[in-house]
């Protein structure tokens, strides 16, 4: 089967027409040139509803080439409905190879997580973004937030953190934790847990963010400074877990609480399913884990 850029099984390669992809690529290039700046783009209707990552899908469609290897995760997992349907969408419309292996992927589209494995220079991480504007909560007027970004007037962001500390004694925000990119633009990293924030800093991979409904694209180029906002006397701290992953015993990965039965049984396991599997295959075992040979069906 030939995979020309023009046509794949009756679809234009990766669904979008070439003109639209060029328009999106221009927005991406601009976003890379101005790290953290939200570039408007003419978001297209996609054959999936907003809220299902149409922004990320458009970015992925615009950067994908026939030789790319695509991984799609939702909350760290490759096997959720959302991840599976986006993966299938690109299998069908672009015929690209897909994978669950973080290290093998050249493009990773994600919702709400950054993989645990350190990303490399030849990889692109595409985030699905629901609300791109970090100042929205305190300043609903778009004209005003644009001015605040243009003039780098970011006092408001700290007002938001101040309110948190006043109310809870600490900065209670645990996800979509705002960052300052390249000492210039304040950016919403999408609803990833703040646990993942340090991974954005100086990452070797290119990070692209697509907001479909809000028609914005922004980027963090490789090796860019990304600092989580905080106060001198209330410094940013990534979430720490008290226990290791119940399955693989990892002490440094982000854990999800999983209900194991209807009598209130629960355990904490890696949200990055590929990471957890890899560790188990390597022989790591958590308190509730089974050796991989037995666990395999």
């Amino acid at each position, binding site marked *: 089967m030939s995979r020309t850029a023009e046509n794949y099984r009756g679809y234009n390669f990766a669904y979008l027409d070439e003109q639209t992809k060029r328009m999106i690529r221009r927005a991406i290039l601009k976003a890379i040139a101005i790290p953290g700046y939200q570039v408007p783009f003419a978001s297209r209707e996609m054959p999936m509803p907003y809220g299902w990552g149409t922004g990320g899908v458009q970015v992925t469609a615009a950067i994908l080439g026939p030789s790319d290897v695509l991984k799609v995760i939702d909350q760290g997992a490759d096997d959720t409905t959302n991840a599976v349907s986006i993966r299938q969408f690109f299998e069908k419309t672009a015929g690209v190879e897909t994978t669950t292996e973080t290290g093998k992927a050249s493009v990773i589209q994600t919702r709400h997580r950054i993989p645990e494995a350190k990303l490399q220079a030849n990889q692109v991480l595409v985030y699905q973004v629901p609300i791109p504007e970090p100042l929205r909560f305190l300043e609903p007027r778009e004209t005003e937030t644009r001015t605040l970004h243009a*003039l780098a007037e970011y006092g*408001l962001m*700290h*007002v938001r953190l101040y*309110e948190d500390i*006043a*109310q809870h004694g600490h900065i209670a925000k645990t996800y979509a934790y705002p960052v300052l990119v390249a000492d210039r633009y304040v950016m919403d990293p999408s609803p990833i847990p703040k646990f993942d924030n340090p991974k954005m800093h100086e990452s070797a991979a290119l990070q692209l963010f697509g907001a479909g409904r809000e028609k914005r694209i922004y980027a963090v180029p490789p090796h860019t400074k990304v600092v989580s906002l905080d*106060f001198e006397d209330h410094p940013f701290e990534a979430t720490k877990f008290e226990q290791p992953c119940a399955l693989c015993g990892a002490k440094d990965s982000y854990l999800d609480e999983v209900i194991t039965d209807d009598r209130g049984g629960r355990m904490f396991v890696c949200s990055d399913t590929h990471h957890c599997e890899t560790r188990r295959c390597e022989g790591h075992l958590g308190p509730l884990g089974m050796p991989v040979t037995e666990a395999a069906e």
Partner: protein
Amino acid sequence: MNPLLVAEGLSKFYGARIGCRDVRFALEPGEVLAIVGESGSGKTTLLNLLSGQLAPDSGAVRYRLRDGRTKNLLDLSEAERRLLARTDWGFVHQDARNGLRMGVSAGGNIGERLMGVGDRHYGRIRENAMAWLGRVEIDTGRIDDKPTQFSGGMRQRLQIARNLVTHPRLVFMDEPTGGLDVSVQARLLDLIRGLVADLGLAVVLVTHDLAVARLLSHRILVMKDGHVIEAGLTDRVLDDPQEAYTQLLVSSVLAA
């Protein structure tokens, strides 16, 4: 004399309608100037011109910056003007909702300017907010309450604290006591008078209440149809008005 702000022939038209016309005066540091006049006489227009929120059709506003340079406001970049507005100036609005963040606690409202100029120490910001609450006579126990839970008088006092935290040299006030009960008004006026004297603030105060002007201001501009028709020391203008219109204003207040 080394004025803080000079208005040079300020005019502003809204289409064919006059907003204000050929207004000129100089404001000294620490001086309180009241702009009085009936509704529609151009008070708010003038205030917005003076504070750079409105561009004049002709004329200029010159302001002496903290570093001693005097600048035409129109020559400042937007970034410079906004920095000036949130550090060296204050704005007290008649409607507190325009001057406060109603969804943010009192402490956050006061702290915003500090964070805006780069203070990144929570403890210090909070201490400062406490001190200012005290100064405007709001119980420091209310620091985490939102302005929505405050009375009208408290909201105005919070607006004042929010502005003064960066030690501005000039405060613009548009009917700061409008819509308040008389007793609440009296207390607020007392507070403003005390702070103005203690801090040596210059104030441009818009009011159509001559009693407020009498209590707070050193000088008065009387406006009618966009023109300044009489100007002078407050006591002189109110006790011995020269213009027929001012005489009418004064006598109608006395009659009321």
